[in-house]
């Protein structure tokens, strides 16, 4: 089982990088969706 730790580290990095990117985009999407709702509500009031 030589280099098992390096292999695991590599796999963790692979999925960590993609998951972190997915989370960042999802958070930005949620924030913008809230902004759209807020602006639509403002437009109705005006």
């Amino acid at each position: 089982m030589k280099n098992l730790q390096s292999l695991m580290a590599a796999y963790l990095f692979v999925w960590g990088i993609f998951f972190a990117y997915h989370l960042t985009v999802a958070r930005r999407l949620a924030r913008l969706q809230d902004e759209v709702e807020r602006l639509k509500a403002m437009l109705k009031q005006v």
Partner: protein
Amino acid sequence: MPRGMKTSWLATAAVAALIGLAGYSALFVAPTERTMGLIQRIFYFHVPSAWTGFVAFFLVFVSSIAYLLRRRPQWDWLAVSAAEVGVACFTVVLVTGPIWAKPVWGIWWTWDARLTSTFVLWVLYVSYLLLRTLMGDPERRATVSAVFGIFAFLDVPLVYLSIWFWRTQHPQPVIGGGGLDKRMWPVFLICWAALLALMALLVRQRYRLEALCHEVQELAIDVELHSAERATEIR
């Protein structure tokens, strides 16, 4: 649940299942390579990440040309979405490469042609993304980015062919190079399919973000215009 949301959840679940299958195949199904041993299994995500990154950068290239020809903002949205996902893929390549190199070559990094051109490719697309943040006018930003996106793609064939042009420590490529054991091919293809599916999902999600940004800008203008009209009526 709305139909679009249901489709999106199904697509995410399918990609997650494919990633699970790819991970299992790479760790438990693929045969252990004779000289490198266990660490060679990094190959199943290192190489497909690079190939997926190339596909993403090709998308940037095509979308940039389409934007310059048609001037439709949707092409620019697709270009920036693919560029970000491509950068994520090459970050994976640049992180997993040294982890693989250390036990096999005895060093984390060497400035040979393949590694250097790959690093330059990553820097080029990070610069592409940074450049976009420096320009406020959407049309100017899209035009300059499209030109940059076309030129940055010139490094892609250079990265791939660097192995033939110069002496390098990096192994020969899978296609047209060293060759791969026939039992490794199916696992490699499953891993590449998983990463391509993930790329499609991430590009789609990032594209939605650009579309929403545009919608927010349009709505903000509408609110401002209506408020101004209302203020004039009251006077």
